[in-house]
């Protein structure tokens, strides 16, 4: 993995929304570096800002939302400054494409799927009619649609959920983007189909040399596809590191809580672990560590000061006071200790 080349760099991004006269801060000074060719997973519970965060890379925020401060730099260009539609058109599809969560609604029901894919081919590959159609059929074949010539003329309602998601992926691929954002690509699908779609995405990433971002709350998906994991909570990335680092050696109490909630880590016969409480109200300013009120191991300082990033390894960092050398020793939960024991084996052979 060439981890040198940063393709997308987000710095201290703040995104706000105006809702019925009140202002909501959806993203609170989140920073992220995306390396060319990598596969990054952003995990977090519903409402943590995963989708909003990535939508801002394409200028797709809803009309009542805006970038308040911070910057997004893509291939050296500060795209967070873009205001006009014409500027974003240069990014959308061409550079960054997106696969949405619900394939049942993300296709136009009245146009044949061939036409919908071809639209992207004509727009971004500069091909016309017959050539574009040939290319479209090729892409349909690439995403695993059998009999693409026949399927080309069919309409979305003639496709199953999994097949529709393949079409949505085909549209994204047809744009020939550099970065592909998959917003919960398997959440709306049958479990049996999920693995197929993930395999497809992995294959396409290799074939088209894509950099991929997965947004998910399914850690199973993460383990399957990601090189790195970013854990998002209340609009900020609280921990980021290589997949194994975050899984086996998680540092942030929120990461612990997420991992402990995995059914696989539960003890048979005992209740499954759940994170108590609800995410903070984003209409108010959050003081200290946003997770502190739900964290049984919270320190006093967590309620007063926002923690900075502490490096765990050159590739792994977390925003928690636990990592501060002055902090008292905090014992992680049992399930995390088991994971750490496995980590010893994984990292030291």
């Amino acid at each position, binding site marked *: 993995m060439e981890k040198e080349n940063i393709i997308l760099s987000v710095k201290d991004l703040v995104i706000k929304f105006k809702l019925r006269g009140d202002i909501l801060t959806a993203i609170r000074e989140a920073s992220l570096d995306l390396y060319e060719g990598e596969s990054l997973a952003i995990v977090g519970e519903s409402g943590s800002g995963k989708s909003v965060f990535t939508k801002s890379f394409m200028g*797709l925020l809803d009309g009542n939302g805006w970038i308040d401060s911070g910057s997004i730099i893509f291939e050296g260009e500060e795209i967070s400054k873009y205001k006009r539609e014409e500027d974003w058109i240069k990014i959308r599809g061409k550079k960054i494409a997106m696969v*949405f969560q619900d394939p049942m609604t*993300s296709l136009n*029901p009245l146009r044949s799927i061939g036409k919908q894919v071809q639209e992207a081919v004509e727009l*971004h590959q500069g091909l016309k009619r017959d050539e574009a159609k040939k290319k479209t059929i090729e892409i349909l074949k690439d995403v695993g649609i059998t009999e693409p010539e026949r399927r080309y003329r069919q309409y979305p309602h003639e496709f199953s959920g999994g097949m529709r998601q393949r079409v949505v992926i085909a549209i994204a691929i047809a744009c020939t983007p550099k970065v592909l954002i998959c917003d919960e690509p398997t959440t709306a699908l049958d479990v049996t189909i999920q693995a197929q779609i993930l395999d497809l995405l992995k294959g396409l990433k290799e074939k088209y040399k894509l950099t991929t971002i997965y947004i998910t709350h399914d850690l199973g998906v993460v383990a399957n596809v990601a090189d790195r994991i970013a854990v998002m909570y209340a609009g900020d990335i609280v921990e980021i590191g290589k997949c194994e680092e975050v899984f086996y050696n998680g540092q942030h109490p929120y990461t612990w809580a997420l991992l402990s909630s995995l059914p696989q880590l539960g003890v048979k016969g005992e209740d499954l672990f759940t994170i108590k409480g609800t995410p903070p109200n984003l209409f108010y300013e959050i003081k200290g560590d946003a997770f502190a009120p739900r964290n049984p191991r919270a320190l006093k300082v967590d309620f007063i000061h926002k923690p900075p990033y502490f490096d765990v390894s050159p590739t792994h960092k977390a925003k928690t006071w636990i990592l501060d050398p002055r902090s008292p020793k905090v014992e992680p939960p049992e399930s995390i200790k088991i994971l750490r024991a496995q980590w010893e084996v994984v990292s030291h052979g």
Partner: protein
Amino acid sequence: MIKYSIKRLLQSLFTLFIIVTIVFLLMRLLPEEGYFGASYDKLDEQQKEAILTSMGLRDPIHKQLGSFYKKLLEGDLGQSITFRPKVPVAEIIKDKIPYSLYFGLAAIGISLVAGVSLGIAMAMGKGKMWDKLGTGYVVFIRAVPAAVYFLFLQLYLTSVFKLPILFDIDKPISWILPTISMSLGGIASYAMWIRRYMVDELNKDYVKLARAKGLKGRKIMIKHVFRNAFVPMAQYLPATILFTIAGSIYIESLYSIPGMGGLLVEVIKRQDNTLVQALVLIYSSIGIVGLFLGDILMAIFDPRINLEKKGGAR
């Protein structure tokens, strides 16, 4: 499609039969003095009886109905009895059709172009100036009884712009006001529906995907949103078009346009049974054909609609 059309045709014939029969019977329930108009007081009972018998109104109802349908099957709509006695109904109506047709077509053209453009402008700038103005217009047209602004237009515009008050075939300038009046309602309905359906479509996920694909706003509007918003309209478009062409009852009598709409009001007043029956037959057929065309049009636009299979997916 053919099987469906035949089925629909049979159903339509049955519906027509019911409508015409009911109207036929209702006309027979009207008080008899209507048949004599102004001369009612001058005639004695015997003369009246003789006239009614000659009109066939003294026959038992089932016999009257039977002979009406028998003639209808032969393609004979009968003769006028009071409006223009002894003149074939078909001839009277034939003279009226061109007026209604021309005014109707002009009004449809204006209301489609203006209404759809207004609707698109409203949907694209939702909550902005055009939307507010348009909504104001739609609410006004829908809430205020049509007679009020029709009369207002006739009264004030004719005096301000020195336009003739009544229709005159030789003066094209007298065609303007009736055409505008006839379009007002259409503009409001088309604008309202287009706006509504487009706003519905704009919030759908496939529009987000189209944006993420890199399509420009204008292209999304035309290729995706407008087309999809048009489908629910397609269903009742033929019916409204046909009805407009068939003539506006109120406008035609207001401006004394010798069209079909004005005729219907006139012949009901005069109790010209055969003419009323013929006109009702025409209007109901138009309604039924309109709805049928609407369904066909929708099936053409929307690939999900299959007119022949029942139930089916979802």
